[in-house]
């Protein structure tokens, strides 16, 4: 019982901190964002379990193509961050990593298709 109380106190710190930060510094969709933030621990657990199953059964998640303009937007956000908070310019890697992962997924799928095509040609 004591352990549950302590756990709730620490989770309360998380809930209070995330709610205050989101409500004070976000302009739109505050309430849904706060609710999703409070559910984050459960989402992370679910993602860990799902990731373990995917790794065990070697089923890799399908990567969507990187949205057009994400790399440019990332650069603009980084410049904005530097203006607001100062410090060194950090390398922007999110969009390029996404595009690279998508390329890897495409390569894998192309190899699968090639295998099937070879088998079809061999049996035809």
């Amino acid at each position, binding site marked *: 019982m004591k*352990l549950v*109380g*302590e*756990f709730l*106190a*620490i*989770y*309360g*710190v*998380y809930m*209070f*901190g*995330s709610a*205050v*930060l*989101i409500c*004070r*510094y*976000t*302009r739109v969709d505050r309430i849904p*964002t706060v609710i999703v*933030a409070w559910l*984050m*621990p459960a989402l*992370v657990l679910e993602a860990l379990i799902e990731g373990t199953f995917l790794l065990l059964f070697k089923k890799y998640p399908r990567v969507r193509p990187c*949205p*057009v*303009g*994400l790399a*440019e*937007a*990332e650069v*603009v*956000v*980084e410049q*904005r*961050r530097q203006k*607001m*908070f100062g410090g060194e310019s*950090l390398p922007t890697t*999110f969009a390029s990593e996404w595009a690279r992962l998508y390329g890897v997924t495409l390569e894998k799928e192309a190899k699968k298709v090639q295998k099937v095509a070879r088998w079809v040609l061999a049996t035809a």
Partner: protein
Amino acid sequence: MIEWLAGLLQRNLVVCLAFVVIPMKWLIVRVCRDKEAEAVAILSAPEDLCYVVLGLVMGDVINGSGAFHREFGKSPYISMEIFLTVSLGLAIALGIHVLAQFADKHWKGWRAAERSLATDMKPKPGEVAIPNAEDNFRTLQYRHMFLFLLGYGLQLVLIFPWIHWIANVIGRNGRVSFTS
């Protein structure tokens, strides 16, 4: 009355610390109307908890009849046990600081993406417009926000077992009793 209150605090150390570190600190900063300091107060809460607990350990260890001396009293390696406890506290502080750096980086990214959504949507003269600017800024904003929350939550996950154990040791071997 004071002893009863002290005993209550000792037995519910984690809850009391959590209450003191976040809502009280936030309230004081809020009263001073310092918006940026509010964020700093909340962002530094897990590190504050860590150092408050480390301070409790250090303060107790220097006392020869303190809770940790009593806890490890039966062990033949009492000095080593205390040294390991303090070292573990320092290692956890280090881990929390690394996670705090991660969280801080994404906190700043989140704020910058939020500001970009308000100010950088239209291209400046001589610049090319960013395709799907709103969607892309929002994607970046949510990415930074959730990575920040992950870093913040992980700090609390890391500190929870540590303060739970310290609170238990102090609660078991504390000097305040309800009977006196």
